């Protein structure tokens, strides 16, 4: 009886919550089309793509300097790619290892999970101290890179663990007992079956690393990554060019997400086609 009243009330509340989640981004997107002389707030003096052109360096140089995103974007993409490769490989290996019970697996599990729990400032600080003591120069492709993997490897590991948990072992065993080598079995049998998980692990690793900055702050050395460039604008006045950048980077992430969805769909379809064959035979 009461739930008949409650459900619509909660539905409206839920809609308000979604507005709360999206509101700031919507306002930011609207303001990114501010005219040349306008500030980072309402009213919009004129609708234009001025700040997008400003971001890409297409406007004549003026009072406001261009955001230095070119090099840092390249660095961030390279870093995210490196992190994705290493943390996915580590994640698959470790999860594969966890399929066999071994002594101390509980401790190893918590050790890996700790990587996603420890605040970035702390490991960042520790890594900076560590490299100072060891005399290693701090660089985005070195000290920052290893910390990015510390952060994303647990996600890859958990995803792969979930995949291996509902994994039909008998197919693998059949392959092994037919005399196929373990390496071949992994490549031809195991890997195609865990591919959706690998894809998810890669997506997570890439996006988390691409956006990571608290771990990078103390460890990247002189060359900045993209989030650090954005962080640099925190202390100074902001202009709508950073809003334009926000819109573009969001679109980039959505593109990644769309590619992931397409690949996933294809993998699922392939799996279904395979199952169909099985039934026919």
């Amino acid at each position, binding site marked *: 009886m009461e739930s008949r009243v409650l459900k619509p009330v909660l539905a409206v509340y839920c809609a308000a919550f979604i507005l709360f989640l*999206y509101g700031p981004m919507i306002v930011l997107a609207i303001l990114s089309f501010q005219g040349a002389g306008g*500030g980072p*707030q309402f009213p919009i003096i004129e609708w234009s793509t001025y700040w997008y052109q400003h971001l890409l360096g297409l406007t004549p140089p003026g009072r406001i300097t261009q955001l230095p995103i070119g090099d840092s974007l390249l660095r961030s993409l390279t870093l995210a790619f490196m992190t994705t490769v290493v943390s996915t490989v580590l994640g698959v290996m470790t999860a594969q290892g966890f399929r066999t019970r071994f002594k101390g697996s509980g401790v*190893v599990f918590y050790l890996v999970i*700790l990587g996603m729990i420890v605040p970035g400032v702390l490991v960042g*600080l520790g890594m900076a101290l560590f490299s*100072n003591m060891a005399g290693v120069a701090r660089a985005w492709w070195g000290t920052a890179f290893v910390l990015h993997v510390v952060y994303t*490897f647990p996600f890859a590991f958990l995803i792969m663990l979930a995949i291996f948990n509902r994994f039909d072992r008998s197919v693998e065993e059949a392959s092994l007992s037919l005399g196929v080598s373990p390496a071949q079995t992994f490549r031809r049998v195991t890997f195609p079956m865990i591919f959706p998980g690998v894809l998810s692990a890669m997506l997570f690793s890439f996006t988390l690393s691409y956006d990571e900055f608290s771990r990078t702050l103390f460890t990247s050395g002189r060359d900045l990554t993209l989030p650090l460039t954005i962080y640099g604008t925190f202390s100074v006045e902001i202009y709508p060019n950073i809003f334009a950048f926000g819109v573009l980077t969001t679109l980039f992430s959505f593109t990644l997400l769309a590619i992931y969805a397409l690949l996933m769909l294809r993998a699922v379809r392939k799996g279904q086609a395979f199952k169909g064959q099985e039934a026919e035979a």
Partner: protein
Amino acid sequence: MEIADNRRAASGLARSQGSSSPAEKREREERRRALFLVTPGIAWMTLFMVLPLLMVVYVSFWTQTTFTVEPTLTIESWQRFLSSSTYISATWTTVRIWAIVLVSTLLIGYPVALFIGLFVRNQTLQTALLVICVIPFWTSFLIRVIAWRPMLGTEGAINMILINLGIIDTPLTTLLFSEFAVLVGMTQIYCVFMVGPITFMLSRIDPSIIEAARDLGAGFWRIFFKIILPLSLPGVVVGAIFVSVMVLGEFATAASLSGRKVNLLGNIIVSQVGSLKWAFASVAGVILTIIIAIVITVMLRVVNLRKEM
């Protein structure tokens, strides 16, 4: 007991060295392969996470000179930290902000989780609503923080709306660059981490239990407090751990939205590193670690996750 175990292990060892059955041999090989597979991961985490964290503890006892630290052990940095009102108040600010954000994410997030997890029984719609909640995470974290500036500013969207509605005459100036802005920003960014786990637990509740309670004459609130809330508690604890860990390690939201009025332990670490005061930064780091450890331990005491999950 122990002797018996040892003997069994010893005999197992003898057997494995001598003639062992194929099954045993295979098992041993598998275990060796498993250890081989997990070793790189363990090595990476030990080398690049555990050692740096130990380093923080170690350096907090080093001697701080003007521009560098020297490995002469001292508790000077600790004494200075604990006797400085700036640092102590930063610690309290961190704890206060954490507590408020935790409560607000729970209060704001729980009804959302209740709706998605319990009232929406269509799986597709349920997934779609969750996906809608998660999509903002595909925007850069820093951009989401900055997005609050045009919302809360003196000429921002909220002031504009309030003035147009005739609720206020002059724009509110305390919205942005205040503790309020930090709280709103953090609540919005971290709320979903509360909604997710609670929704997951709520969607696992068997509807027939609630139906049974209703048939027996229980009203909604009674059902809520006697059935729904206890069953969702593990989700609340998991969400609370997520939110706590992230809020306690925060510094960017405070740096961007508080106008330097809110100094969290994270901000202290950043500013101390900026002026090369490594030892003080380390002390702040150790204190932050202790706070996080206490919070997680207490939360895990409340609910035994292993038993509930």
